[in-house]
């Protein structure tokens, strides 16, 4: 499995190479961009996308999709900000936990609808996407929660630096580490792959497929709730349209990172690299003198290119199996 040539062939390695080449190209135009300090800034900028992409990866691994993450983020962010504005005396960690817990609850709603009623996840999350964002409007009455209304401690936490990196970046690192452990080393994590790879076989292997899907939605919701706090405190403002359309960026990061939309294939490392890839492009365009207005079409083109490459890779694998089967049959005959 870990022989050098397979490692080199792995999607993550390819993506890493593509990312390095991209950074090299950017360095030709703007050498300052690739300094460690700036790269750390890019990582911090991408932290929220990374965290959400990891949650989305869990969902996509089980052949589902969660379109409601950005709306979940907006609702939990708004709720957290309003709670902080109303009760500045509440400790910040408690508020962070409350946001994450609320996100978990919203994710559980998605998960239950998919698991218990058996609705297609795309329909469920399309519905909850509008409901969550609508709820953010109802909750706030369409008002903004501005910087001066939130307590300084609430806003400062993600920005405080530890060992040269802001807490926001460390949180992303922690989520990456934990998720990598859970995805590869726990039964619950492996169940995600099993259910996505072959749901029927997973059930025969004794895996509760519905519960695995439910857990994936819970994780996605939990991380979206955490990001709700992070987003609002980082940008120091909460309003209804926070992160509008961000769910598609999150899915794009997963897809670029080689998470297969048909389930069962993907890794935390891939999702992180996919998110970083988008983050680098977003941050580099103004630096290399491309109008930021072109960013959207460039990321669109990259998504398409990444899907083409990934689909090719998957198909090539299928052919090899077929050929071996042919050889075996010939030998038997």
């Amino acid at each position, binding site marked *: 499995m870990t022989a050098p040539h397979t490692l080199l062939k792995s999607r993550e390695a390819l993506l890493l190479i593509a990312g390095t080449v991209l950074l090299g190209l950017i360095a030709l135009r703007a050498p300052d961009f690739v300094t460690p300090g700036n790269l750390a800034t890019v990582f911090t900028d991408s932290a929220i996308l990374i965290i959400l992409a990891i949650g989305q990866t869990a969902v996509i691994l089980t052949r589902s999709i969660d379109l409601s993450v950005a709306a979940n983020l907006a609702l939990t962010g708004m709720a957290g900000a309003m709670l902080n504005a109303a009760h500045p005396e509440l400790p910040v960690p408690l508020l962070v936990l409350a946001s994450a817990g609320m996100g978990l609850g919203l994710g559980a709603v998605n998960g239950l609808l998919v698991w218990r009623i058996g609705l297609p996840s795309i*329909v*469920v999350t*399309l519905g909850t996407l509008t409901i969550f964002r609508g709820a953010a*409007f109802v909750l706030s009455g369409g008002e903004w929660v501005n910087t001066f209304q939130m307590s300084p401690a609430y806003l400062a936490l993600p920005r405080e630096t530890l060992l040269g990196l802001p807490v926001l970046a460390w949180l992303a690192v922690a989520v990456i580490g934990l998720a990598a452990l859970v995805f590869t080393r726990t039964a619950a994590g492996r169940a995600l792959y099993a259910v996505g790879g072959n749901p029927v076989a997973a059930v025969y292997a004794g895996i509760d497929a519905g519960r695995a899907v439910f857990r994936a939605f819970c994780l996605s919701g939990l991380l979206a709730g955490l990001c709700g706090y992070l987003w609002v405190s980082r940008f120091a403002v909460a309003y209804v349209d926070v992160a*509008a359309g961000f769910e*598609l960026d999150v899915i794009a990061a997963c897809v670029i990172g080689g998470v297969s939309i048909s389930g069962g294939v993907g890794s935390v490392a891939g999702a992180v690299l996919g998110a970083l890839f988008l983050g680098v492009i977003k941050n580099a365009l103004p630096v290399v003198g491309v109008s930021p*207005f072109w960013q959207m079409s460039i990321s669109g083109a990259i998504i398409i290119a990444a*899907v083409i490459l990934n*689909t090719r890779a998957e198909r090539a694998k299928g052919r090899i199996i077929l050929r071996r089967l042919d050889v075996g049959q010939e030998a038997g005959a």
Partner: protein
Amino acid sequence: MTMLTPNAPFAADHGRDAPPPPVRVIPDRADAPFATLLKSWEALLLALILAIFTANSLASPYFLDVWNLSDATFNFTEKAIVALALAFVILAGEIDISVAGIIALSSTIMGATAAAGLPTPVVAAAGLVAGLACGAVNGLLVTTLELPSIVATIGTMSLFRGLAYGLLGDGAYTRYPDGFSYFGQGYVWEWLSFEFAAFLALALLAGFLLHHTAFGRTVRAIGHNPTAAAFSGLRVRRVKFWLFLATGLAAGLASVMLTSRLGSTRPSIATGWELEIVTMVVLGGVSITGGVGTIPGVVLAALVMGLLTFGLGLLNVSGIIMSIIVGAMLIAVIALPILTRKLSLRLRRSAP
């Protein structure tokens, strides 16, 4: 079930620790309650429309007015026209998330041709051709390159709208030739707007195509089982390509109407429409997994969403509250038949 019951004590006699086999009901006939409910999906939507209609006319004295109702059609016909085409794509087991992106790019291109001083027919044609071209890109990605359509069209959604942003930046096109306003603001006869007339004609065409031609049957066969369809000699890829092309054209047409109605183009035009249009199709009873659905269902769903939005608007309910209602309705309407089926299964299981 009656066959299985005597087996349970048999297993217990052998003293096995294993739990008795789960009772399984294998129906020997179609699930009657579910099938009837599915058949009456349109009836359900129709009842919903009547309810909304009655509630609206009771709640607001301004609702029941021919001109008011005619105005009401404007806020959903453009989306509904795209929904008609998208219904075919979803019926064939694919999806197109890029429709709003196509509307934005097509509108930008129309803006550019209008800015170049070209006359109305050329401007409108440019919009339609742009839509067709975008549809062709989607079709090629999904059929020739065999990409999953949901990912491919998320990519092209960014690409198309991104091109609109790249070309237009934070600017806007606001100068359109004189006759151009007809497509979005003109009336064919009395209170019948050009938009609504076009929608009705296209709905008839789509209904005819889906329910009375071999093509419609082909589309549904592909959605039910693409592999079986391919082995039956159906040209799966070619049909899918045509469907994406048609959706691109429909988005182009919607773009002509919307641009003409607003009289201006910004890159953010029709933001979020893709989700509303998909909602419309799914609410219309088209299964997101393909194969099942009707055009009357989609038309009724468009009316439900349009009347609800308009009626609540007259009552000064904010747009975002309506989106909550539409979102909840989407989940409820899809969950309803599944829940009834589960309930009827459970009832049958508990019955002796």
